[in-house]
């Protein structure tokens, strides 16, 4: 972890009609860290994600990534500039094979298009091979290479969750946003996932993690940001946040393992 700011989520307000989902939220993510983003249901975590990845245009505020403003960029341009994400409810391309799913992500970095594909130029073939090799590598990294040729919809739940991460990683992001990757996992699986996320971080990726399960978040996050009702109420090291009275109040009545 360095002190270099990778993503600067600057004073963002997001309103839907009359409802304010985020209110003047500022978050900084440093290169190489795992930042945990927590908060009760409806606190605005996924909205944060959606603003970062261009799904929503914020009503106010800017998102700076690597020093440039990405607020107005199109979604695919944001991905190509280095932010990738997974989804809270799995959104794989279910009719495609696992490896094809990952290849779609890998293609984000490729340039050959229709004419090249039609002519099968040398570069196109090289790129296809690169995409394929990289995708298989990522599937292996996630431990799901054995089902590479199966349709995504036929994969077991845990595989699908990990496939989403592989697909996101294939876009070669600098920042990886994981939206509740451990949802629906049992403790053993969660443990595996924790190790996986740490491994990813150690490969040089920056990770933004939304998680319900406090144990997961506290265990692996370098820093934690807490949202409640669309406002940032706390930020800091896991230990500090855990003892923050505002956070305790926000979570009162919500058991730690609410996921």
């Amino acid at each position, binding site marked *: 972890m360095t002190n270099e700011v990778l993503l600067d989520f600057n004073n963002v307000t997001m309103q839907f009609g009359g409802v304010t989902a985020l209110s003047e939220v500022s978050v900084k993510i440093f290169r190489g860290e795992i930042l945990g983003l927590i908060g009760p249901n409806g606190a605005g975590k996924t909205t944060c994600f959606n603003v970062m990845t261009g*799904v929503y245009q914020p009503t106010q505020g800017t998102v700076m990534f690597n020093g440039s403003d990405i607020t107005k960029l199109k*979604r*695919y341009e944001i991905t190509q500039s280095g932010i990738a994400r997974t*989804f809270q409810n799995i959104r*794989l*391309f279910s009719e*495609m094979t696992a490896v094809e799913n990952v290849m779609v992500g890998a293609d984000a970095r490729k340039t050959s298009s229709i004419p090249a594909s039609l002519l099968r130029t040398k570069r196109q073939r090289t790129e296809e*091979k690169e995409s394929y090799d990289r995708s298989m590598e990522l599937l292996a990294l996630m431990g799901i290479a054995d089902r590479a040729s199966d349709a995504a919809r036929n994969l077991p739940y845990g595989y699908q969750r990990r496939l989403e991460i592989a697909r996101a990683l294939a876009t070669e992001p600098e920042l990886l946003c994981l939206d509740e990757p451990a949802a629906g996992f049992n403790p053993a699986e969660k443990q595996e996932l924790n190790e996986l996320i740490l491994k990813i971080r150690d490969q040089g990726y920056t990770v933004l993690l939304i998680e319900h399960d406090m144990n997961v978040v506290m265990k692996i996050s370098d820093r934690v940001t807490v949202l409640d009702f669309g406002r940032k109420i706390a930020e800091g090291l896991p230990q500090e946040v855990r003892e923050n009275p505002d956070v305790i109040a926000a979570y009162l009545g919500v058991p730690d393992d609410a996921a």
Partner: protein
Amino acid sequence: MSQLLILWKRFYSLFAGVQAHWKSMSRVQRLSGYALAVLALYLAPWWPKIPGIGWLVNTPGTQFSTVLNDQVIIFVLVALGLNVVVGLAGLLDLGYVGFYAVGAYVVGVLTSQHASLPWIVALPIAVLVSMLVGVILGTPTLRLRGDYLAIVTLGFGEIIRISAKNLDWLGASRGISDIGKPPSIGPLKFGVIDPKPYYWLGLTLVFLVVFCLYRLEESRVGRAWTAIREDEDAAELMGVNTFKFKLWAFAIGAAVGGLAGAHYAGKVGFISPDNFPLQLSILFLAAVVLGGSGNMPGAILGGIMVAWLPERFRNFTDKRVLVFGIALVLVMVFRPEGLLPRRVRTKTAMRTSSDGKEVAQ
């Protein structure tokens, strides 16, 4: 009941067995198999003479080889093109007949109405113009969601037909006659009566289109299209420039539709707005979905069925359309994914594998 189920499964496993057997053969054997199949297709005009299966394929009341070209080839080409738009990219296009008409009209205008270019020169222009029209129509409309797109494309199909019907420049309701024909090559004479050369030309075009589309499908382009069809938002968030690829799908579909129209115009020599009714768009779509959308063999089969069946069963002429309608409902009830549903391809994995070995299953 359970016995029925078992029978059903047997039937399927038999089918799978043939497939496995096919895969187990050597490359040479497979290639020679393909070559023989292709040759058999080129000899299709003589199929009705084959004892045994002749009665099955023959079309009583109409000339079989004319049906092969004017109906079957046209529908197969169109189904292939529309399959890119609807089956692969998941864009519901109810006005596809418009592109078909553009192709035919460009050839008509360039070879007869306002110029007398040879057909062979007009053909690529027709394809390009259709593609351009696809881009022009697609640019404003592809931002619309699925069903809005459907009604807007339907409107475009109608706009093109009505314009052709009312613009004197396009021959209005008189249509365009004396459209140029493909140049004769050696003994192959593209005349008025013998439809066989047109069929062979059309079949060659089909192979060409299949080849090109196969290359696109088996590349990043095909993956992008499928991803868009499966989940457009997720695709965009994975870095797919969805608008660009949707526009490409639209343009390529339009180009193939235009090619079909140009081939048709060259064959029949006369086109009028009555050749391009809105209902034809719906038949085209039916061909794609009936056969199995998103799957080239399916689209081809669907095209063949929709074109050939009505001619085969000409003997109950007045009930043909009724039967067609009921059959559409029945096929959708019994096989909602079409006659040849698309299967998840495993080929990508095997073919592009870096070390040439098949990926462990």
